[in-house]
């Protein structure tokens, strides 16, 4: 495998399939009474999160521990970053202690590329600014495959703040690579330029996007976007773009509803849909651990399995 996992844009179809197939084996470990294998024993993994995270950080940590790695969480809020230490210096100083892998989440697009240039350690992108969130897209793909048996040929609607979403970018890349028919939908003010050149259908109508969809993926809307005049109010956003049960009913009867989390209930998604029978949101979270185990395992060289 490669040295780093920075972006879905770097991965070939075969690499993606390998990660998803490896996830099956990793999931099985999570179902055992003793959820541990010695695969990464003696390896040090540093989780360096510059942004708040519930799911991603926890699931990386659990994944690392299940593989018997020594894990460290650097809480940026109590680190010398508070004294103004740069990302480059932080990385070089950590690198001097010879970790094997660094999992980085950072508010700046390209931060992981910077680390990959500076560090010998393997870098895993846990979300860089508005750019990519590769392990999210991988666990989303795994979840879709789990429920639908395939990705190719499915109609997948992704709805929300497309412009600022790293989850969108990673998912668009991965799902189009695997042959899905992807619809990206959101207010025109939140459609990134050139999105129509990425092999997706762009729509500003949720009704059109979810019509006959196999999968609906909702993205979080940040309320701060009202300051940039991207949309007038939460109320109008929910009325025009929110996923209500009525809207979801336009999709296929066996549709699955997804959301990377955290959700703004009543903004992008109605609670009854989020908690309803079509929602696989919590499956996504569960699969996140297994997918991250697969990524860690493969980056470490796919060394001796359990």
């Amino acid at each position: 495998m490669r040295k780093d996992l920075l972006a879905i844009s770097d991965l070939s179809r075969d690499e993606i399939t390998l990660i998803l197939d490896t996830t099956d084996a990793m999931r099985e470990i999570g179902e055992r009474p003793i959820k541990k294998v010695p695969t990464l024993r003696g390896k040090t993994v540093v989780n360096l999160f510059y942004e708040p995270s519930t799911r991603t950080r926890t699931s990386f940590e659990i994944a690392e521990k299940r593989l018997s790695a020594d894990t460290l969480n650097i809480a940026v809020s109590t680190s010398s970053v508070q004294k103004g230490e740069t990302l480059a210096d932080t990385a070089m100083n950590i690198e001097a202690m010879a970790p094997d892998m660094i999992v980085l989440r950072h508010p700046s697009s390209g931060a992981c590329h910077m680390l990959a240039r500076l560090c010998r350690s393997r870098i895993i992108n846990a979300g860089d600014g508005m750019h990519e969130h590769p392990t999210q897209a991988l666990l989303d793909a795994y979840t879709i495959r789990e429920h639908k048996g395939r990705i190719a040929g499915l109609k997948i609607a992704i709805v929300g703040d497309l412009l600022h979403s790293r989850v969108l970018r990673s998912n668009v890349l991965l799902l189009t690579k695997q042959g899905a028919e992807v619809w990206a939908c959101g207010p025109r003010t939140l459609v990134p330029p050139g999105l129509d050149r990425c092999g997706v259908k762009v729509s500003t109508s949720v009704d059109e996007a979810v019509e006959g969809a196999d999968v609906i993926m909702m993205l979080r809307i940040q309320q701060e976007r009202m300051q940039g005049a991207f949309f007038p109010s939460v109320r109008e956003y929910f009325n025009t773009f929110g996923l209500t049960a009525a809207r979801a009913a336009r999709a296929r009867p066996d549709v699955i509803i997804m959301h990377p989390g955290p959700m703004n209930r009543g903004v992008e998604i109605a609670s009854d849909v989020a908690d309803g029978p079509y929602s696989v949101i919590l499956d996504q979270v569960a699969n996140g651990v297994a997918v991250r185990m697969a990524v860690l395992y493969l980056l470490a060289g796919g060394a001796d399995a359990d």
Partner: protein
Amino acid sequence: MKRLLKGGRVVDPVNGRNGVFDVLMDGDRIARIGRDLPADAGTTVIEVSSAFVLCPGLIDMHVHLREPGQEHKETVATGTAAAVAGGFTAVACMPNTDPVNDNAGVTEYVLRKAAEANLARVYPIGAVSRGQQGEQLADIAELKLAGCVALTDDGRPVATAMLMRRALEYASMFDLPVIDHCEDQTLKGDGVAHEGYQAATLGLRGIPGQAESIMAFRDISLAELTGGVVHIAHMSARQTLDAVRYGKARGAYVTCEVTPHHFVLTDEMLAAPEPYDTNVKMNPPLREAADRDAMLQGLADGSIDVIATDHAPHHYDEKGVEFDRAPFGITGLETAVSLCFDRLVHPGSISLVRLIELLSVNPARILRVPGGSLSEGAPADLTILAPDLAVTVSAARMRSKSKNTPFDGWTLRGGVAATIVGGRTVYVNEDAGLRL
């Protein structure tokens, strides 16, 4: 001291010369230009082959020398050393220093530093507004008296239409052009790259070309209203060039400049060869191929008046951070000539005569400074160019204090052989093979 440069190809558009001529310099002046000039006993004769081009000293009218206040990036001394190494006998320097050059004190300081360095001539550009805050006019008469040749709030646009109008009216009393960094800041927002496919896929906030062209249309309208003189700095968007053509067609006093990086590079550099390279981050940003090509067209058809580098040195600590946090700007003094030869002259887009107009004749005319021609009796400011010199750009060998350039390692055809200011040789390129 008399020096006779024999046998070089003299390109001097103002005096209609383009051919092999001898140039006799006496002290700091050009004494004679002609064919087969005799040399008396007191004259040093230098054989220059016709492979070399002698032209009026190049003038870069958009340079950030960073002194006073940001000497870690550049000083007048290092900046003028970089200038002469780039073939420039004069630079016009921007006022966004710390303190801002909005008063005679800072202007005189810069001029004193330039005199001490004694390399390229320095023509300070003063601020339009006090502190460049965009509210009150700076003391423009004082700036003119102290030696400023133009006004700008560069770094920022002139903040409001009202202020730009007043500036154009007021500055016209002193024959000072107003140079505007055209940018509607509400449209720019917190953008860091050109708004387009590249920025969108890399997750970088975008700045549309119209953020620039809207302001250019504003300035040109005000130039029409007031009869004042406006110069559009560092154009990057094809829509801005449209604005300039519109203004010129209507008789407005508008001129414009483009940087080499805007006619050479596009926003594809954001992704490759090095994704998120902060040496590709500048304002205005690199735009799409259509914009770059429009700039090439404008250079060829005469719509663009000047090539100026917007030399913007930054310390590597400042550039060595995440893309959206890095300061905007790249250096340009030491790569301009080679890029012009390699990407404009050699491909046949423009002639050598036109190149000298863009780099010397027009800047001198717009700023109303001496130079732009090799006239007898004029100061002996000459650039000796080597159009076929094989150049490999090396940031490490640059004289600028800062090395923030995207061109490191590029191989280009064409460069500078030597630079002469006031009859003194202030730079010789060892690799060019010219003995001065």
